[in-house]
């Protein structure tokens, strides 16, 4: 049974904001399908009324006090951005 086909790859690639070239789509689909077929075996396991485990630690209520501890380090933060303008990060025009 095919679970991941070319159409699925196109859709999830779009969701993940990556681009898969037309010529590679088949190969990706085939590989992902093989992997998902195998990993999908998990679906056959009877987990009864088991709760999903969301946190492995018995840790809860971890808080920080409401204190301002950071200084302005704008220049350091902008250092890794390749395109910037007047202290802002810059992107192509965003139309909403």
């Amino acid at each position: 049974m095919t679970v991941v086909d070319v159409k699925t790859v196109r859709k999830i690639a779009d969701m993940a904001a990556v681009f898969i070239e037309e010529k590679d789509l088949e190969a990706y689909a085939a590989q992902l399908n093989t992997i998902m077929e195998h990993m999908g075996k998990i679906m056959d396991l009877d987990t009864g009324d088991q709760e999903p485990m969301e946190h492995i630690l018995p840790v809860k209520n971890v808080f920080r006090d409401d204190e301002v501890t950071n200084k302005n380090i704008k220049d350091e933060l902008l250092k890794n951005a390749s395109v910037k303008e007047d202290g802002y990060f810059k992107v192509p025009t965003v139309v909403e």
Partner: protein
Amino acid sequence: MNYDIVIGLEIHSELKTSSKIFCGCKNEFGGEPNTRCCPVCLGMPGTLPALNKRVLEYAIKAGLAMNCRIAGFSKFDRKNYFYPDMPKAYQVTQHSLPICYDGYVDIDVGYETKRIGIERIHIEEDAGKLIHSSTGQGSLIDYNRSGVPLIEIVTKPDLNSPEEAKILLETIKTILEYTEVSDCKMQEGSLRADVNLSLRPIGSNTPGVRTEMKNLNSFRAVQRAAQAEAERQARVLDSGQKVYKETRRWDDHKGESLPMRDKEEVMDYRCFPEPDLPPVYVDEDFINEIQASIPELPGMRRERYINQYGIPKYDAGLITQNKVLADIFEKASEVCGNPKLVSNWIMTEIMKRMNEEGEGILHSYLNGDNFGQILLFLDKGDITHAAAIQVIDVLLETGEEPIVIVERLNLRVQRDESLVANTIKQVVNSNPQALDDYISGKKKAFGFFMGKIMAELKGRGDPSQVKEILTKELQRYL
């Protein structure tokens, strides 16, 4: 056809904590771009969130003030989508288990009280801001707002008119201000609402398809957008077409809304538990502690004003709608001892100024104490009505104490009987025509003399005293 309007609101309110939700950056509006940021709120690789405890407290406080149940167990999730103002490409929010749920808020619609259900209140983080480049090319991002704590209040679809939607938003704003969890500055975007609206043919039970209008940041916009959308949906339905479930953007200038995204595209946010934040357990003690810190809320305060101060329900409602104003009322009443006078002056002189200049006046030199002192002068007859207004004007400019203004400008009422009597005599003598008129029965002349005398006394005469002596003086000629 005629339709029932069904509206629910999603209200986003920034919490006024000192620092951001997950890092020690300052939570403050504005500032030079990207100066209130750090690796954490910029989502840099390897950084992790640490929850600000006050965010949790404020969210619970808001929830209690809206009669919500508080979840003993709640947690955070990631909501994944790409947008350049969101540095991690996911928003940390409470998707599956919100901190508050199942509450209500009572609103006054005309003379009726209506109960609006609150579905949930959850905690989440705000995103940065996009602006257009001054070069005309490209968009610029300022992440100062990224990581500012928010609560999202989701109401049940219990609202049935655009006006009710507006009133609910006003009511919730007041509650948030009273509980001091948000400063609700709508012009700064710290309180904004999404309107979910659908129509249902009158008598029908089947809910209609709803649309969502995003980011409305004034009461007027909420009411107008809801009105326009209700009319648009009615036109669509009347013409036999279908309303699509979609997100629309309201243009307040044009007074119309347009669809934001492609109708076909349904967002899949792939929400899942945030692995970097442990769950939150809240116990009774913690809730009780917060409950005890909640001040008297507007509804209760209004009732108290009616009973304790005997002011009209309408006045009490308007005054308590604004916490700062209500605080001023209460302090001023205490200082001057005449709540009805204070309430009258708020309803006229203060409201007038608020309408003309906005709420700034409530955060100016004027406060309950000095306002009360001014009205006390007035109430004792030490200054006139006109002088009281003059004192307020000067106070707003200079911030001087009322007594200082009164003395400096020599505004105290002139009660020296011989001086007043002499002035009256002089005015009567130097206006023979008016005196003749008065003698011949033209009562209007009395008013003329009053005006002249008050002017001569530079507005400082005590009208009742002047009236009394003037009547006696004129009596002599009859």
